[in-house]
Structures are given as C-alpha cells and as structure tokens.
C-alpha cells in the first residue's frame, strides 16, 4: 500500500514542469543512496496487514474483565464511551499544534478547559495544557523549582513510584542537581526524616499522594516543613483520587503534578499517557510546556491562543523553560472529556467507590490465613498485603489456575519486599471479582 496523491500522468506533468525526467534527478546532492532495505518486509495490502497485526495481538493474553488487580501507576477504570468516540474525530486527531489559532479553536478551547479542570482539581492557580506523563512532569517540577529558587538540591520521598525516581535522576543529571531520598517508615514518608533532609540548599520537596504503596501522606505537615526552609513543595497526586482527597492547593503545595491516565485513558502497555502540572501564580513564567490563554480579536470576540510563548523552545531556544514541543494534547483531551462526563458529583462518586471497594476487598483478603495488611495507614484504592510466601510465586500460581492477575509483586522493585503483594481495587471490580481473588489466593497459599 502507499498513500501517494497523484496519478502517474499527473506525476509526469509535474516532472515536466520541474524540467527533469525523474525524481531521482533531484537527488544529486545525496551520496550513498540505497535501493533496497532487506530488513523491511515487503508492503502489505490492508486486509493482509490487519490479519498480520491481529495475529500478533492474539499472542497477547490479556486478563478477562474484572481479573486485573495490578495498579502501581497505571489503573484500570471504567471510561464513558464518548471519550473514545470524540477523540477519534479527525478534526481533533489529525490536526497539528495550534500555531494558527484562528483555525485551531477546537484544540485551544479543549486545552483551556483542561487547564481549568486541572486547577479546580488541584486547588492551584494555573495549569499547563499537558506534560508527557506523570513521571516527567515530576522531574520538570523539580527543574522548575531549581530555576525559581536558584537552589540546587531536591528532596524526594522514597515511596514515590520507583520509575518516577529513575526519571527524576535522569532529568536532573543534566543540570547536576543533588537528589536526597527520604527513607520510608511503615509505608509512608516520615516527617522527621523529611525535616532532616531539608535545608537552605533545597529547591523543592516532592511527595506522592497516594504514594506508590497506596498510603496517604500528611501533605500539610510536609508543606510546612518545606516552607520553613524556603523550599517549594510539590505534590504528585492521582487526579482521580482528587475527586475525594484534599487538594494539593489546600494542603499548601506550590506545584501539583501527576498522570491523567486514571481519567479514562486506556492502559495501552504504558502509553501514551499524559501528565499534568499546576502551580501557584508567581511560578507561571517558569512553567514548562504549552499554555493556552484567552484573547480577543479585533471585533472583541473571545478566542484562545497559545500564550507566554517566550518561555518556549521555539522562541527562547537554549534559554527556554523546557525542550517540550509536541506534548500530549489528544490524551489531555480524553481526560477533559472524561472529567466533563463524570462532572462534579460523578468524579466524587467514582473516587468514593474506589475507597469503599478497596477497603471491603482489603477486609476480605486479610481474612485469608497468614495474610495481613503490611501498613496501617489510610489508603485510597491500593493496599499492600504481606503473604506467607513469595509474592511472585503466588502471582504465577494464581494466574495459571484462575486467570486472575492478583497484583504487583513488590519484589520487582525492592527485594526485601518480595513477600508483599500490592493489590489495586477500583470501581471496575465487583464483589464477585474480589471473592474470586480471595478464593484463588487461598488456593495458592494452601
């Protein structure tokens, strides 16, 4: 297949207009051309392509509905059908970055609405129109704080997502910032340890809420501790949890970041997802990425346009606040549609259901002999079970017998937690699903 636009005769006419016999005649400047690429298989017609890709897809074995209890930064949630239907419109999916605002009001309005929704969820003043994902948003938050404060160290909770910590290290390696990691206690970030790490060199303190182990942190105390040494406080929150949890803004955060994947975005083997970032007003000119602003045209009509672009790479070049060009506009649009569909009460209800279902599930699973909750703090929709056996073995056993993916083996990240299973229960898990998990775990632990 190819999708070239002109007929052979039209191509001849164009060659004639240019005054060459063939396109190859225009390639004189190129040395070392190739004629063949043996490593790329011959092209396929549409039917054969679909068959081939479907055959690959069949080699995957996704769990049946209600059988995946893995969370750990990527969550299975129910999404309104309108989300996929609307983002599939070519008018959204086949347009570019809105460099010509007069003919990009759809993308720009959606971006402005996304920004507004994020400020309302986070309780902060300004949000940008998306980041690549939560992890890179957290790293950019640290860079923002370093620029704003002129300080060079960052204090990070040891129970943020371990992959986020990796991303933070990568991003900060370029500017040579120091990263201090606060050792957790009982699944949370202890205030005393936070205070011990904070001093006048610290640009920001970063804490995740709920943290990677599902536990809720005391953000207010953390914010106070950070501010006491003149450092900024950044909270990384699951945006769906913000349907019910105290917002970063009301807890004293200066920067809020997170990944919008829980807001109706498919799991998709890890991406594409989108990150969000919101800040207090004074930080806005240090923000990375795109911002959509309101403007007026000559007739006084309201319109929207990219604004404060002097921060951006295409204007400021090596002095830009970030190198971001393409971000995640379509994914942010999906999250926008999700939030609008659920609305003020719907989001709260879904978040509440996550709490209720997760707590009921934890009660049921704790009843299995030898199984107990690893931590005793409050949690949202994810909790850690300590098992009498290696969690990895239990996961394999359960999956082979019942097709259930019971959760994440924490030994994947911390060898000392290889008897810990992290279970995620969202609104997609029924009572029956949890009973099946309980039976399967009991069987595996017999």
């Amino acid at each position, binding site marked *: 297949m190819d999708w070239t636009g002109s007929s052979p005769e039209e191509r001849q006419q164009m060659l004639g207009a240019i005054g060459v016999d063939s396109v190859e005649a225009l390639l004189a400047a190129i040395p070392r051309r190739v004629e063949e690429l043996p490593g790329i298989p011959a092209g396929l017609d549409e039917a054969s392509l679909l068959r081939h890709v479907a055959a690959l897809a069949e080699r995957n074995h996704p769990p049946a509905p209600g059988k995946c209890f893995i969370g750990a930064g990527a969550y299975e949630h129910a999404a309104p059908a309108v989300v996929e239907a609307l983002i599939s*419109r070519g008018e959204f999916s086949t347009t570019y970055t809105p460099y010509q605002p007069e003919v990009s*009001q759809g993308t720009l309005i959606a971006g*402005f609405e996304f920004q507004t929704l994020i400020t309302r969820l986070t309780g902060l003043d300004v949000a940008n129109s998306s980041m690549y994902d939560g992890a890179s948003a957290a790293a950019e938050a640290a860079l923002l704080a370093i620029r704003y404060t002129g300080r060079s160290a960052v204090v990070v909770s040891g129970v943020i997502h371990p992959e986020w910590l990796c991303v933070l290290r*990568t991003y900060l390696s370029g500017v040579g910032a120091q990263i201090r990691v606060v050792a957790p206690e009982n699944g949370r970030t202890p205030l005393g340890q936070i205070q011990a790490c904070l001093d006048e060199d610290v640009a920001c303190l970063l804490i995740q809420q709920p943290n990677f182990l599902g536990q809720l942190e005391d953000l207010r105390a953390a914010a106070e501790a950070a501010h006491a040494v003149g450092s900024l406080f950044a909270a990384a929150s699951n945006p769906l949890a913000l349907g019910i949890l105290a917002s970063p803004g009301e807890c004293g955060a200066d920067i809020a970041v997170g990944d919008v994947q829980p807001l109706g975005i498919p799991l998709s083997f890890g991406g594409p997802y989108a990150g969000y970032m919101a800040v207090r007003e004074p930080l806005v000119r240090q923000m990375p990425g795109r911002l959509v602003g309101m403007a007026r045209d000559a007739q006084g009509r309201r319109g929207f346009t990219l604004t404060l672009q002097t921060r951006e790479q295409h204007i*400021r070049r090596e002095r830009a606040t970030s190198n971001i060009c393409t971000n995640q506009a379509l994914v942010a649009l999906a999250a926008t549609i999700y939030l*609008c569909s659920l609305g003020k009460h719907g989001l709260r209800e879904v978040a509440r259901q996550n709490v209720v279902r997760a707590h009921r599930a934890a009660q049921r699973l704790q009843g299995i002999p030898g199984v107990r909750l690893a931590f005793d703090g409050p949690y949202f929709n994810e909790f850690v079970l300590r098992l009498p056996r290696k969690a990895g073995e239990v996961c394999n056993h359960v999956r082979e017998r019942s097709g259930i993916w019971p959760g994440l083996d924490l030994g994947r990240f911390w060898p000392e937690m290889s008897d810990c299973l992290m279970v995620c229960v969202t609104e997609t898990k029924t009572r029956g699903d949890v009973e099946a998990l309980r039976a399967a775990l009991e069987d595996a632990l017999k």
Partner: protein
Amino acid sequence: MTDIPLIFEISQPGRRGWSPPALDVEDAPLEEMLPAEHVRADPAELPEVTELDVVRHFTRISALNMCIDTTFYPLGSCTMKYNPRVTEKCARLPAFDLHPYAPLECSQGTLELLHGLQQMLSELCGMHAFTLHPAAGAQGEFAGILVARAWHEARGERRTKVVIPDSAHGTNPASARLGGYQVVTVRSDERGRTNPSALREVMDGDVALFMLTNPNTLGLFEDGILEIAEIVHEAGALLYLDGANLNALAGIVRPGDLGFDIVHVNTHKTLSTPHGGGGPGAGPVGVAEHLADFLPGWVVEKDAENGFRLRRPERSVGQLRSFFGSTGVLIRAYAYLRALGARGLRENSLTAILNANYLRIRLRETFAPHVDEPCMHECVLSAKNQKKRGARALDIAKRLLDYGFHPPTVYFPLIVDEALMIEPTETESKTTLDAFVDALMAIDREIDECPDVVRGAPHCTPVGRLDEVSAARRPVLTMPADRAAE
C-alpha cells in the same frame, strides 16, 4: 456574534453525563475509612452536563479546527500527511490494551511487534539499535544528548559543548541545555548549508556533539555531510541527526551510512501517526553500535526460547518517562511501516520531493526562494518582495486561511527573512497543489489591489486575528470558578 461557550458555561447544577457502576458491596461512611484531614473540603467544581451536552460541545468545537482530514496542511518541518485509518484500527485491537506490568508470557504479541519495529527502524536508519522509549522527538533529542554524554564520560572525558547550526529547530538548543551543555552556534553559508570549514572552526576538544537536521530546515540536503562527519569524528565528537525531516530520506538514504551516530525519529511525522493537536507522539532513538549500551529505557530482545523480553541496556542513561513508551503510537508506526514496505517508503519519499519541487518551481517567480536549487521534501520561500509592497508573511498566512488552506510555517527558519516554509508531503495530489498555488498567486495580486483585505485577514474564520500581545501581558489561563469567563 456571541462567543463560543465553554463547557463550564453550559453547566447546569444536577445534570449528569455518566453513571458509575452500581456499588455492590456494603457501603460505609467515608470517615470510617479516611481521616477527615485527607478529605477535600468541597468537591472540585467540574461541569455538570449530560452526555448529549458533552457530545455536542466537543463535536461543535472540533469543527473549529482545520485538520488533515479536511484541509491541505503544508506546515513545513511538521510533515502533515494523511494518517491511514488502517493503522488506527490496528492500534485499537483490544488485546493490545495491556497493563504495563503484564507478565511477559501474556504480552508476547506486543513485544514481538515492538521488536519488529526496532528492527525496521534500525534498517531504515542504518543504525545498530533503537530504543522506542522516548515520548516525543524532543525527549528523544534529550536521550541522544545523554547518550553522547555518557559515552564521553565512559571514555574519561567531560566535554562541555554542543554545536548546532543557526537553522536548527528550537528543541535542539533547548535539549542540549537540559543535558547540561553549552550551546555553540555555527552559521549556515549562502547556500543554506553548514559549511565544513565554518564547522571546523568551532570544533574543538570540548565539543561532545554536533546536532544536524538533514535535509535541513531550508529543505536542503547537506551535501557536505561526508566531510562534516569526518570533521566531527576527528574532533572526537559524535554526530546527531534530528530526524524531523526524515520523510525526505526514508528508503532513499540511511543516516547511518552518512556517518550519523545517533538519530531520533518523530513517529507522528515520518511514520504518519496522527498529531492529535500536538501529541501524543513518540521519539524512538537509534544509535551506532558503540553507543547501544547507553540507550535509555528498555530494548526488546528475542531470548533463547524464541520468546521476547525487555532488557535494560547495561550502562543505560536511565528512564525518561514511566513504563515502556507510547506503545499505542508505536503500534501505528509499526502498521504503517508494514503496509508500505521498503519500496512504498521510497516511493513516498520520492513523491514528497516531487511535490515540494513542483511547488517551488510554480512559486519561485513570485515568492523568492531563499536558495534557488532543488529542494528535498519542503521548500523555503520568502515574502520579502511582498513585504516591500506592504504585506508580511504573517498576513499572507492569515489570508490563506480565507482561501481554505492551512498556511505554511512562517518566520522559521529564523535565518530567512519573511520565511514561508512549505511542506506538501506525498499524500497530496497535483490538483490540491495547483489550487494552493492559485490561492497564493491570488493573494499576491490582492496585496496591490486590496491590501487591507490581506492585512486584516482572516475574515472567514471562527475568530479573527487575536490580540496575542495583550493576552500575554495579562494572561487569562483558567476560567474563574464562580462566573462566566469575563
């Protein structure tokens, strides 16, 4: 005329757009589970709308966008070509919707596909290995810079500078800075190319990397490339290809064969994954053999039992985002490559070059080309003659909107006065290109006949030219919570 309402402005208390699943476990008051200090004071002020409100609102605003599905979109350096629907269908197969921590044995199909994509990209670019991890081209650039730095450091060198031509995309210097490097600019010569002797002057033992776009942002092939590669390598530095313009080369020439050590590919440009209004994209990065151990993220490899698994390169520079990468986008790229095959890719590139040169020839009498010689997939013209007659590149761009065309990129590359950077791509027909030429010619006449019409354009769009200066001076970035927008 009234403003287009925002979703917040059509909200009515009590409306609902979706019902969550019925709660089938015993309910309990929240305070039994969450201590009060963790619960938010008030629910977030999200809109309250019905499903039909949502569908109408987003359908209505979508119609305010120009897009490839409706309009010719010759936005230079952005490669806006048609997005075949079959790749969408492939990416949406339900079995690809896996959790990123899915057990290996349950994700073999995805891993095999990703492995195939790595192999095809390596062949297409003449590279030893690819990582599919980066989220976009600019993140790929950052990855490439970190790889270069790690390689130099592994050899005991701490180099401090990255050299970039003055015609480069803004992401290049921004990424170099993010990687901790000082940026050194090398000027293009009067032929719009990097002159090897000018490059030689700035190359010293402190330079880690030379970042080049080829064909460059003037749409010209850097014909000194073999000598450039030699100069860069002699100085102990690495040569980086910004792959934004790879659509001109695919199937014709391989960057690796020209001496490039590192390449990134913008899947949403060359490999026709939809741009989505500005993402999501993906920015796979390919490297020569000596750099393969430093790649970020994971590589997919075939193991002894003929299964596929993920491996972190031994001396990896780390991770740039969570999880494997933008898998949904990568599936589309894979499907696109398999649909075309090497021959189709070559045919596409040749057609993109044909179309760009056709536009160059038809327009060059009216809009002065910056360099008047054969171009690759895009041509950079200038409105400097029109500027003398009272209309700038921006005016012409805005007037094109009235004629139903998306304008070219304007004022980039920065080295061209009143730049119009036109990239037609291979998927457009001669009919469309001719209509576009006619529109530009008509606008050129209008500059003399009715200059105010051009300078006041656009007239037929949902909003007119926006006052961006005031908007930036007093930015309104969110809708106030308690009232209509203004």
